[in-house]
C-alpha cells in the first residue's frame, strides 16, 4: 500500500473503496478494461488495484498510440526518410520503437534526416525554412491527436506549401474496442472510457457498447479518485442491471465532444478500408487516410511506400498485452530481455505503454507475485 499512502486523498479513496466492495456480488468476478494508457499510469502509480476487492480486476486496453503501430509502418517511415531530400519528422515517443530494420534513432545514426518535433506545427515550420527539402510528418495517434494533424494540413494548404506532407497513421478507438469485444479471448464486464479521446469524440459514439454488447462504459478522468469513482459507477450499473454510457469526466469532456475538431478531421481525412494494428491484426475501418482533396499533402501518394509486413519478434507478447489477455509481467521477456532501456516491444517503449507503466511503478507488485509463486 505504500503508493496509496502517499496519495493526499487516501481517506476519500478508502471510503470509495469500501463502497465499491459493498457493490460487488459475493463470488462474482468483475473485469474492467481501462482503454487509455494514461489511466494505466494512474492505476500503477497509485497502486489502485490494492484498493479494490480481490474479485475486481483491471485489464489494460489498446489505448497507447505508439504501441499499436505495427513494425511494418516503422519500416515504411524509414524507407521514406531515406529518399533524396527528405526530412522526416516524428513525435519523440516514436524514435525508439523498433521496426524490422531498427528504430528511427538507428536510421538517423545511419544518415537519414529524422527529427523529433513536439507538434506537427513544428514540422510545418521546418518545411517553411527548407523550401528545397521534402518535409514529411509521421502522424500517429487516436482521435485526440488527429485534429492537430488535420489543422496542420489545412494550414499548409492555406499557406500554399508544396514541400509538406503527412504519413498518416491515425487510428480510431471504437473499432479496436469492438474487436476486443468480439474476441473470444477475454470476457469483460465494462470499460473505463478514455478521457482525452472523448474530449474530441464526445460520449455518444460509445452507445453501441452499451446497447449492442450490454456493457457499461464510464468516461473517466486521470486522478486516482476519478478512476475509483468510475469503477464505482460501473459496479452500480451492473448491480442495478443497467448498461449505459456515463461521463465521470464532465468537467473536461462535453457530451457532444469538440465539434470543430471533428469537422477538421472529416474535412481532411477519411476512413481506410482496413489497417493493421500491432497485436490486434487487421481491423476494418479502424484508421484514417488523407482525403483525395488533400492528396498533395499525402506522403502515401508522393512517395512509393513498400507496404512492409513484419512479424513481431517471437519473444514479444505485446499483442496479448494490448488485448488485455496477458498482464505485462506475464510476458516471458518482461523486465529481463525487454526493459525501457532496451525495449523489444512497443508497450515497453512508450511511457504510456502498459509494460513501461508496470516496469516503472509496478515492480513491487511483480516481486510480490514472484515471491508468492515461489512460496
Amino acid at each position, binding site marked *: 500500500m505504500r503508493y496509496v499512502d502517499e496519495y493526499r486523498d487516501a481517506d476519500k479513496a478508502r471510503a470509495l473503496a469500501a463502497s465499491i466492495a459493498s457493490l460487488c456480488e459475493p463470488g462474482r468476478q468483475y473485469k474492467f478494461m481501462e482503454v487509455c494508457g494514461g489511466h494505466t499510469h494512474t492505476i500503477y502509480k497509485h497502486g489502485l488495484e490494492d484498493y479494490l476487492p480481490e474479485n475486481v480486476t483491471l485489464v489494460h486496453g489498446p489505448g497507447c498510440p505508439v504501441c499499436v503501430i505495427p513494425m511494418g509502418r516503422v519500416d515504411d517511415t524509414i524507407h521514406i526518410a531515406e529518399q533524396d531530400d527528405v526530412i522526416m519528422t516524428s513525435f519523440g515517443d516514436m524514435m525508439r520503437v523498433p521496426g524490422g530494420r531498427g528504430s528511427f534513432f538507428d536510421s538517423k545514426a545511419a544518415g537519414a534526416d529524422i527529427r523529433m518535433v513536439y507538434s506537427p506545427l513544428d514540422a510545418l515550420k521546418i518545411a517553411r525554412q527548407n523550401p528545397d527539402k521534402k518535409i514529411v510528418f509521421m502522424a500517429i495517434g487516436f482521435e485526440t491527436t488527429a485534429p492537430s494533424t488535420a489543422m496542420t494540413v489545412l494550414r499548409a494548404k492555406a499557406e500554399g506549401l508544396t514541400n509538406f506532407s503527412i504519413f498518416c497513421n491515425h487510428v480510431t478507438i471504437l473499432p479496436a474496442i469492438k474487436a476486443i469485444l468480439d474476441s473470444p479471448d477475454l470476457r469483460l464486464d465494462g470499460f473505463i472510457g478514455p478521457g482525452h479521446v472523448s*474530449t474530441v469524440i464526445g460520449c455518444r459514439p460509445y452507445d453501441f457498447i452499451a446497447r449492442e454488447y450490454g456493457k457499461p462504459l464510464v468516461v473517466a478522468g486521470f486522478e486516482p479518485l476519478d478512476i475509483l469513482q468510475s469503477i464505482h459507477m460501473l459496479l452500480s450499473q451492473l448491480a442495478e442491471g443497467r448498461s449505459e454510457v456515463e461521463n465521470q469526466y464532465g468537467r473536461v469532456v462535453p457530451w457532444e465532444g469538440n465539434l470543430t475538431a471533428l469537422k477538421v478531421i472529416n474535412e481532411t481525412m477519411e476512413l481506410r478500408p482496413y489497417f493493421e494494428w500491432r497485436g490486434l491484426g487487421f481491423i476494418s475501418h479502424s484508421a484514417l487516410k488523407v482525403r483525395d482533396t488533400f492528396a498533395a499533402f499525402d506522403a502515401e501518394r508522393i512517395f512509393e511506400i513498400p507496404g512492409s509486413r513484419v512479424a513481431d519478434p517471437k519473444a514479444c507478447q505485446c499483442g496479448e498485452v494490448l488485448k488485455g489477455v496477458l498482464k505485462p509481467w506475464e510476458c516471458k521477456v518482461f523486465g529481463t530481455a525487454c526493459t525501457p532501456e532496451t525495449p523489444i516491444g512497443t508497450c515497453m517503449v512508450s511511457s504510456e505503454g502498459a509494460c513501461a507503466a508496470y516496469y516503472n511503478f509496478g515492480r513491487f507488485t511483480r516481486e510480490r507475485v514472484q515471491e508468492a509463486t515461489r512460496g
Partner: protein
Amino acid sequence: MCLGIPGEIVEILPDQPDLAKVDVSGVRRNINIGLITDDDPQPGDWILIHVGFALSKIDEAEAKAAMDFLEGIGQAYADEIEALMESRIE
C-alpha cells in the same frame, strides 16, 4: 505525446488570432487555439494542450488536478515539457 497538459493563456497574438502565448509550468510558448474558438478563449483562461493545440478550456481547479497527475507520472511529463521547450510554433 499522448498527454494533455494544462496552460494559462497569457495573450492572443494580435497578428495571428489562431495562436496564443501560453504559460505552461513557467515556460511560455505559442499554442494553436483554433480548435476551441467556439469557446472564445481569452487571456487568463486555462486550457488543456495536446501536441501544440488547445483541446478544451478547463477551470483552474482542473488545471491544478491535471498538473498533480502529470507531476506524479515522472519521466513522461519531463519528456513532454522538454519537447515543448524545443517547440517554436509560428
